[in-house]
């Protein structure tokens, strides 16, 4: 920890760079650990870590930097609590030529928000996080790769698998007959 910043300067910089990302930090934590109370704990812990570790932050994208910490904190917690994540196996068969139509109107009738939220919750955590960072945070593949510590190609394949899985699950919703 060479060149540690003086405390007031550090605090000011921290406020300017890291504090504004609270919204994103909470959203990610909430999606990773599933419930609001634990998510708050994760965010608090992450911010304390971020503050203590702030000297190690050198002009990297501050959002990505913070989210790496949030992710690390959440994953540690998930592992420690032996969270049995849903199976990482997607029963997809790309070769099959059956592609069901998504019918957005039917879904709207059934409360698409709740259904989507539930399906997203069911995704294995690494797929869930890719989708959350991409669709809710609007991050680029490069940023997602940085946060999740994976190659760019893996970002795309995780998104592809996650979305195909959602699409499949949504298509299986029984359609209303008129």
């Amino acid at each position, binding site marked *: 920890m060479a060149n540690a910043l003086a405390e007031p300067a550090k605090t000011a910089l921290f406020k300017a760079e890291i504090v504004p990302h*609270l919204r994103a930090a*909470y959203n990610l934590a909430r999606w990773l650990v599933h419930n609001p109370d634990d998510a708050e704990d994760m965010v608090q812990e992450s*911010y304390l870590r971020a503050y*203590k570790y702030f000297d190690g932050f050198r002009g990297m994208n501050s959002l990505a930097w913070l989210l790496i910490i949030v992710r690390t904190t959440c994953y540690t917690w998930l592992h420690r609590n032996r969270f049995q994540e849903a199976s990482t196996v997607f029963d997809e068969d*790309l070769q099959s030529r059956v592609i069901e139509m998504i019918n957005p109107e039917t879904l709207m009738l059934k409360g698409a*928000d709740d259904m989507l939220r539930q399906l997203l919750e069911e995704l294995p955590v690494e797929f869930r996080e890719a989708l959350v960072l991409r669709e809710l945070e609007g991050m680029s593949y490069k940023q997602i790769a940085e946060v999740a510590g994976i*190659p760019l190609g893996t970002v795309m394949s995780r998104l*592809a698998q996650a979305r195909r899985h959602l699409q499949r699950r949504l298509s299986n919703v029984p359609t209303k007959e008129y």
Partner: protein
Amino acid sequence: MDCVETQTMMHGYLDSELDLVRVVELERHLEECPHCQQAYSNQQALRAMIRAASLYHNAPDQLANQIHVAQRQAEDQNSRVSSAVPAKRRTHRFWARAWVFELAGASACLAILIFTVLRVVPWRGLASSDDVIAQQVLASHIRSLMPNHLTDVLSTDQHTVKPWFDGKLDYSPPVQDFADHDFALIGGRLDYLEDQSVAALVYQRRKHFINLFIWPSPDVARPANAARKGYNMVHWTEGGMNYWAVSELNATELDEIVQRIRGAR
């Protein structure tokens, strides 16, 4: 570009992350293939739904305050700890208070240390019970059996497979062929386990594939068997490397193969 590739690439396309060459190839394929076209419009619909839905979890209002308070406390501790050090011998009562601050300081240092270790050595030995790894290993094995996922380098020659990993990993996995013993090396692949890139060697016996995952580890473990979802797994460490073999082969044959692999080292 074929359908399988298209249905992965279309996500890069949807996210405006594809390079121009692939965009052109993909658009050409979409024009010709109604199947993929349908898949693409489904994905567009899905994206629209996700964006329209209120899935974003907004932080509770009090959280910003809590963080502010927690951070102020951390700040205070930091500055008081530094002034508490020279003041050690002042008075007895102050000592008691300083002790509390030093403890706080020490735990802060410990937190930083743990965090640093976590960042440098992701999870290893810490949270990763073998159970969690076994799950990841199995998932990777199953993923690898999906079309076009099995091998990045397709070769039955260990002298082709081994150098292929150079520059892709910062260690060199031992690669051996066992065609004489009725299980042949058919290639290698980079995979991703425990937050790091790992070598995956692919062997075949009859119609069954065996994935052998190898990555460096300071742990020492005797061979242990596991079975999940009809797949068999064997885990062991040797020469500073972690080995996981997984296959749908029966346990006896997998054990035999593992012994050959271990015998060859």
